[in-house]
């Protein structure tokens, strides 16, 4: 292999030809997405399926979902560096990588999603301190920088790069200060995960999303934090499983996987309890106060009650119970099913909060509208997924992402 010197010591990787073939496959999706992005940027958002009723659609759902699922990075970092759960060192690099991809991917999508991309810096220059979105803009960009800082030492640990004295010492020093970055990341993440929920909870003109809360924060602020930290570790587990399946190697030890599942399960129990309470209070308190009923919040198949019951039950209570039972976690097939359900529930939550909120006709003489994303939205979203695969593939091949890989496969 011509790139053998760049591959971490003592691990096996596929041939360069096979790897390039894989990158070409990923490249097809990236090329399609780049074409979509070019069309959107050159001709405007009129080329998408969005309209005046659905200003937010697939892109915002995608952003919210990946930011929630990427929460494994900050929360695992918090547990590893602040609470000193040492076992998590075996998976911490992967969580950082997943977090970096989720956040950088979300930011790429946001550039496409705003109507005036050249004005994206206005959020800093003319901030409205009362807007939850301002807080999101600040924290997401700052936290993405933190993730870059957390990812850089991993790059510097590449066998060839690390031979350089400066890079070697830089990586070492980055590691020393990592608890500081983990702390900053935790602070920023708690706020922006919450503010993403707050963005919907403050919409007092939209009964589907509006919630009361504590001080300036609607309940959705806290629910979004809880759901993100509950699903983040599950998503990391699923990514790890996918990488194991694609590489044919064991990358993380069982104990660490089960610990991640346990953390996810405990947090999901906490979240789903409060989510059910919130739904009950919304249906019996908020809605009647606004002259609406629970049934009026749902419509047809696209916005039916089945989404709520799936989110709360099949993708909420069921995985929560599964993940807190040690015997279930021992059976890895079931553990992964539970992790998948957990992540699916959070994606449904972000979808309904984004799209169903806009679809519900608040004016009594108005009608429900439906939204379907078009190719421009799908291609660019898939491009981000492909970008994730690309960076993950390169990182896996050339960087020591999994500290135990050598030991587990010897």
């Amino acid at each position, binding site marked *: 292999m011509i790139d053998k010197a760049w591959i971490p010591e003592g691990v096996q990787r596929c041939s360069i030809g096979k790897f390039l073939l894989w990158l070409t496959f990923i490249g097809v999706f990236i090329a399609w997405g780049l074409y979509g992005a070019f069309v959107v940027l050159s001709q405007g958002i009129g080329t998408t399926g969005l309209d005046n009723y659905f200003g937010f659609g697939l892109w915002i759902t995608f952003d919210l979902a990946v930011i929630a699922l990427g929460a494994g990075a900050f929360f695992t970092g918090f547990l590893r560096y602040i609470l000193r759960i040492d076992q998590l060192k075996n998976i911490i690099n992967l969580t950082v990588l997943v977090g970096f991809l989720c956040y950088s991917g979300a930011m790429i999508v946001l550039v496409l999603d705003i109507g005036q991309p050249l*004005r994206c810096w*206005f959020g800093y220059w*003319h*901030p409205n301190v009362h807007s939850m*979105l301002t807080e999101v803009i600040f924290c997401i960009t700052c936290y993405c920088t933190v993730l870059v800082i957390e990812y850089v030492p991993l790059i510097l640990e590449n066998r060839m790069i690390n031979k350089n004295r400066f890079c070697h010492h830089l990586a070492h020093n980055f590691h020393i200060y990592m608890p500081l970055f983990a702390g900053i990341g935790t602070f920023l993440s708690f706020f922006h995960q919450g503010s993403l929920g707050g963005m919907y909870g*403050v919409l007092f003109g939209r009964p589907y999303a509006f919630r009361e809360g504590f001080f300036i924060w609607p309940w959705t602020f806290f629910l979004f934090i809880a759901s993100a930290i509950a699903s983040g570790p599950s998503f990391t587990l699923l990514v790890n499983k996918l990488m194991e399946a694609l590489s044919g190697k064991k990358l993380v030890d069982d104990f660490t996987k089960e610990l991640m599942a346990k953390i996810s399960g405990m947090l999901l129990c906490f979240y789903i309890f409060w989510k059910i309470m919130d739904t009950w209070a919304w249906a019996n308190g908020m809605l009647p106060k606004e002259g609406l009923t629970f049934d009026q919040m749902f419509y047809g198949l696209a916005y039916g009650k089945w989404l709520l019951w799936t989110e709360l039950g099949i993708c909420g209570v069921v995985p929560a119970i599964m993940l807190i039972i040690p015997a279930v976690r021992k059976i890895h097939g079931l553990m992964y099913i539970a992790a998948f359900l957990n992540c699916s529930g959070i994606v449904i939550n972000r979808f309904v909060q984004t799209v169903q909120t806009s679809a519900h006709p*608040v004016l*009594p003489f108005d009608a429900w509208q439906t939204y379907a994303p078009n190719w421009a939205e799908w291609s660019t979203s898939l491009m981000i997924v492909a970008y994730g695969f690309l960076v993950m593939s390169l990182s896996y091949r050339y960087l020591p992402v999994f500290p135990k890989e050598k030991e587990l496969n010897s």
Partner: protein
Amino acid sequence: MEHKESNIKWGMVIDLDKCTGCGACMVACEAENNIAPTPDSSNKLRTLSWLLVYEMNNGKAYPEHDVAYLPRPCMQCGNPSCLHVCPVVAIDKNEEGGIVSQVYPRCIGCRYCMAACPYHARYFNWFDPIWPEGMEKTLTPNVSVRPRGVAEKCTFCHHKFAEAKERARAEGRDPSHLEEGDYIPACVAACPNGAMHFGDLNNPKHKVYELSHKPEAFRLLERLGTDPQVYYSSKREWVRRQGDNYLTNEKTKGE
């Protein structure tokens, strides 16, 4: 988000019993406010209609069937749901009169304001505004055209407010105390049936003051707390009931 409390409150009262749904207000609005022709107007969710006429009906079969038409401009809410959410302060409600303004050169096009507004009064420029050759001569000089990628909405023809103040100054009158009729938005001026009235809701000398205090006057979605500056009136109870959401056991406001 705090905003200035003004002494003048520009507002509208629309008599739904007089509105025939002719759409003259919509046409006048689009012409006055330089709204470019939409490439494909068949998708009504993509068109720009700062003022949109909705059709309502009582849900009953003939011969009890009844319809009403409801012109919906921006409500210029006293507590605007859009104002709080804009991340870049592109929305403002600090000018005397309480008009909610949109700062086009500031807007980044995030569309959060559109998600916030329950009246669907906010619109997005999905395409570059292009007027067929020659039609650019019809543009209103004092109204800025908006670029692709920003949100926009009814401004109560704010340029006419500015013109009225200028006229008052030129005539040696106090521009902060305009007479009724000095400032009239294009939709109100175009209404052939006299269904639309405009003026200072705080001024007892203006007709809208009296109309907005009548028992048949109501505002859309009052329960949400948006405090609109647009009133409607109808003697028909079913019309007033559709102005807000009610549980089946609740009485219509004012009944």
